[in-house]
């Protein structure tokens, strides 16, 4: 029976080509626009650490002075050098890393190549296992390297391609800002989206290409950047950052289960109270320990324009669907005579209904296919845009499947009213004329 319905539907669709094309185009544009914006939103609001973002936390303290104290104000998202080092050396979490952003002017051995700047990260060894950073060659540096401020570096895949043509460069030398570093590891392409561990350098900034032990970077005076918030005497010169009353480092910890989260929270609270007692912290002890997704929600990283576009696209889709309902109604009602004959020949209301819905579903399938093309074209257009986020817009399988399901379901729903109205036509009236 289904085959027969499909044949009938095809014949009917072919009879009024303009109307059919219009319906398919409307569904396709609506679906295409929605899926394009939804994909961008999906990518930008995604989980940067799938499977482990619930185990990675950002300890937050309030080391600021009394001036302008407001107990409802958000806590700083960064720490001072002193607090960072204290918490790092306390080793109370399964893993912990202290870090800051940098800009690394890289010089090639090839003198024909002008120096160029790549984003860098000065951090401690747990950064790599805690954030599940994939290595292609070698590995991260050791705890001893951190302590000894060893002149070592891990480089990103792009930089390895650029300097060493993708070969295994472990053991070779990297010249950064006049400093020679021994390469101990080369990463596979890796980028956290959003760039959760340091939003100061941009919510979606591209991945770093040079990783250097934090201590090494400080001793070698590598160029630091990123956000900095000061109070009281504030920042001294770059050499005095270690004692400055400024927060400028990011600190992250990994806590594998609820018990360790609770005990770390207690430890952090105790630390803050101790600092208040010591007089280092002037404000009442306040702490926070959000995990990655809680932190990203709080910071509202997804750009407003992207959310606006999603809503707009859905509004657009609704109009397209209403349009399709109207056109389908016209199309089905025009066949009142044919339906009357079928009903008079013994077809039940239900089978007429099923036949008409088959036709609606076929428009949905065609609309879904065309909508997929629209979405792919839309995403290609998005990727043409400049900006750090544009490159991320790709359709994944989940979105691909969603496109189809939404398209078919939406057109089926759109076909319900027209089909219901048409199958209720009294056959006698139609046959009379």
């Amino acid at each position, binding site marked *: 029976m289904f085959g027969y319905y499909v044949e009938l539907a095809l014949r009917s669709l072919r009879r009024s080509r303009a*109307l059919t094309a*219009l319906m398919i*185009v*409307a569904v396709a*544009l609506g679906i295409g*626009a929605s899926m394009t914006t939804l994909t961008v939103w999906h990518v930008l609001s995604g989980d940067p650490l799938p499977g482990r973002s619930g185990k990675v936390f950002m300890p937050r303290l309030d080391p600021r002075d009394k*001036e*302008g104290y407001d107990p409802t104000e958000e806590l700083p998202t960064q720490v001072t050098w002193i607090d960072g080092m204290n918490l790092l050396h306390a080793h109370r979490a399964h893993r912990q890393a202290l870090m800051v952003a940098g*800009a690394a*002017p890289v*010089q090639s051995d090839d003198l024909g190549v*002008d*120096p*160029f*700047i790549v984003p860098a990260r000065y951090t401690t060894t747990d950064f790599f296992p805690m954030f599940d950073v994939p290595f292609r060659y070698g590995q991260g540096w050791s705890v001893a390297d951190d302590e000894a401020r060893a002149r070592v570096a891990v480089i990103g895949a792009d930089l390895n391609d650029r300097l060493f043509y993708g070969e295994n460069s472990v053991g070779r030398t990297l010249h950064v*800002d*006049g400093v020679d570093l021994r390469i101990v590891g080369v990463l596979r392409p890796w980028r956290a989206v959003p760039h959760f561990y340091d939003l100061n350098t941009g919510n979606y900034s591209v991945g770093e290409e040079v990783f250097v032990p934090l201590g090494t970077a400080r001793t070698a*005076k590598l*160029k630091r950047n990123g956000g900095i918030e000061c109070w009281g005497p*504030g*920042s*001294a*010169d*770059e050499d*005095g950052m270690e004692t400055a009353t400024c927060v400028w480092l990011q600190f992250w910890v990994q806590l594998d289960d609820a018990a360790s989260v609770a005990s770390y929270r207690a430890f952090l609270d105790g630390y803050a109270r101790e600092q208040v007692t010591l007089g280092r912290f002037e404000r009442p002890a306040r702490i926070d320990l959000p995990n990655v997704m809680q932190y990203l929600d709080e910071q509202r990283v997804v750009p*407003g*324009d992207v*959310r*606006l*576009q999603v809503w*707009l*696209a859905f*509004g*657009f889709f*609704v*109009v*397209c669907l*209403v*349009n399709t*309902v*109207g*056109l389908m*109604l*016209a*199309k089905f*009602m*025009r066949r009142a005579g044919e339906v009357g004959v079928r009903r008079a020949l013994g077809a039940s209301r239900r089978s007429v209904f099923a036949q008409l819905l088959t036709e609606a579903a076929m428009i949905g399938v065609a609309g879904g296919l065309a909508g997929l093309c629209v979405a792919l074209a839309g995403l290609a257009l998005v990727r043409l*845009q*400049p*900006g750090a986020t544009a490159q991320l817009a790709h359709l994944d399988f989940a979105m691909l499947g969603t496109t189809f399901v939404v398209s078919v379901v939406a057109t089926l729903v759109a076909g319900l*009213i*027209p089909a219901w*109205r048409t199958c209720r036509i009294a056959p006698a009236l139609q046959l009379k*004329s």
Partner: protein
Amino acid sequence: MQIKPILAALRRHKAGTILIALQIALTLAIVCNALFIVHERVERVSRTTGMNESNVVAVQNLYVGSPASYLPLMKTDIQAIRSMPGVEDAYVTNAFPLRRGGWSTTAQKDPDATKDGVQSALYFGDEHALATLGVKLIAGRNFTASEITSFERDQRPAPPQVIVTKAFADKLFPGGNALGKAVYYIKGRPSTIIGIVEKLTVPWIDADFIDNVTIMPFLFNSSYQHFLVRTKPGQQDSVYRNIANTLYGVNRMRVFPEKSGIRTFEMVRSNAYEADRGMATLMSIVCAVLLAITAAGIVGLSSFWVGQRRKQIGVRRALGARKIDILSYFMTENFLIALAGVVVGVVLALGMNQWMLTQFEMQRLSVSYVFVGVVMLLGLGQAAVFAPALRASRVSPVEATRSV
């Protein structure tokens, strides 16, 4: 025109009527708001900076290595740029309009106040800054060469003299007599306003203190510098092409970031407003497609109605109705449906805007946009129904005698 028979006929096509009206309502709501967003973005993009933006080249420069001081490097570089052919003037700074990065601080009128200051962006520059920017000094004087000092990282920005924008001066001193007055960027350390410029905007495009700028007579001792260069008319392209080689000729130990290293000011402006332009374009396309789909929907459904009523039309024609009567019947019918649609649409548009006010940074929808939207959709409806209505008017009276 007889409205009553039209309404009576519409009652027999409830579903179709409601669908068209609903579609018009939704389209109106979306189009009004989308066009309003376009308007907002276009307004943002067309804001002026107070600079004379033509014939300006901006260079972002990072010195490689850690010399004792960057000042000698900076001075040699700026001399080299100023003596380039085609260059009129140049200076070295930390930030400039549309750079989208820089410093700001709060300034006070009283030496000890800490609250309720006026926010201002800080631009560092020497006596060449005003001429290079092309801003208009409306009161006071420019810096002199002897007033320019070096600014170290551990210092706090409180020079003895500053030049400020009129907007900033007026906010601090509403009386309008700011020249010669002291301003406190740092508690207890006065800076005298020696000059006031007409207009200059902050580096950020989203700041709510967009016109509040202070120029300080500083050379910032740092590895990271911006050179702003004013070229002679018509020389911008040659300076833009040659400036990297000139600077490399002075000293190779430097990096120009790939995308933002060397830019004409047109590029600076276009980079700054990339997202806004993209949004405006997208919204315009969405509006156009939406209107097209709605028009196509009206054509489709009207054609169906005309086809369905051929016999009735024939009867009316046979009973003496003229072509124009049939035409105006369908036009009026569409107008009535569209009218119902826009009434609902206006409510929807305002509701949607109200919701967006709470969710996104947006202004209240202006009534003129709703009005334009209403006129647009009523016009669109009439235009869309015209072809089917014309076809209806051509139905021959003979149809009345035929049975389908």
